[in-house]
């Protein structure tokens, strides 16, 4: 079979992914997670009688807990494949990347498997977050002074 024919055949059987559809799904799912965040903040600040700043900590921990649990149970991967950035950009993506790496490398042992791979994907977020926060903080400290 010629190369061109082969490429034609491959492109026929490739799953069609519409970029517009992907973007709309990411928008809707991300938006729903945003509403969920606001709902949880109000829920915690009302029922636990705490400030909304403390309630936001509870909210983030709740989202991380459920993202982590659903990843461990195995069906969060499908959700992420469907919603893509809709679930990667919220804090759920951070927890998902850690738990999925941890479970994937479990068979290689507690130190070289789980221990050294848990931050394989989330590590870049922490590295560049800390470096940029330090750098921008330094700039602000020099310009404004605190």
């Amino acid at each position, binding site marked *: 079979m010629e190369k061109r024919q082969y490429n034609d055949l491959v492109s026929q059987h490739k799953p069609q992914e519409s970029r517009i559809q992907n973007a709309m799904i990411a928008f809707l799912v991300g938006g729903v997670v*945003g509403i969920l965040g606001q709902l949880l903040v109000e829920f915690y600040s009302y029922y636990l009688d705490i400030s909304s700043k403390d309630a936001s900590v509870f*909210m983030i921990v709740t989202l991380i807990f459920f993202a982590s649990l659903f990843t461990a149970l195995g069906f969060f991967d499908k959700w992420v494949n469907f919603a893509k950035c809709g679930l990667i950009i919220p804090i759920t993506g951070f927890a998902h990347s850690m*738990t999925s790496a941890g*479970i994937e490398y479990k068979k290689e042992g507690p130190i070289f498997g789980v221990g050294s791979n848990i931050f394989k994907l989330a590590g870049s977020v922490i590295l560049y977050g*800390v470096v940029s926060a330090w750098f921008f903080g330094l700039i602000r400290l020099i310009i404004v002074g605190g």
Partner: protein
Amino acid sequence: MIYIYSFLFAGILCLIAQVILDNTKLTPGHITSIFVVTGAALDTFSIYDKIIAYVGGGALVPITSFGHLLIHGALDKAGDYGFIGLIMGMFDLTASGITAAIVFTFIFTLFFKPKD
């Protein structure tokens, strides 16, 4: 009204990320890193604080708020201790999120096996 703002803000951030993901060769790792740096940059002059006051939970959920919390903790401590405070306070506000993610991940990896 704050729910609509939450929906729109979080949704639009995810939309931007998805458009970048589909149209460039950047991976989700690149994009989350870019968004964290953006969050830290926006909070350098307290812009992200204003967004949170306006949008509420919708601005706390995306990963940009992680960068915002990092620099916010650092600047809080820097107010008391100067330059060394930037290092002391870096993880003050994000500690809960990172610790929760680590602890939950560890517990779940003890009990669950990979699917296939």
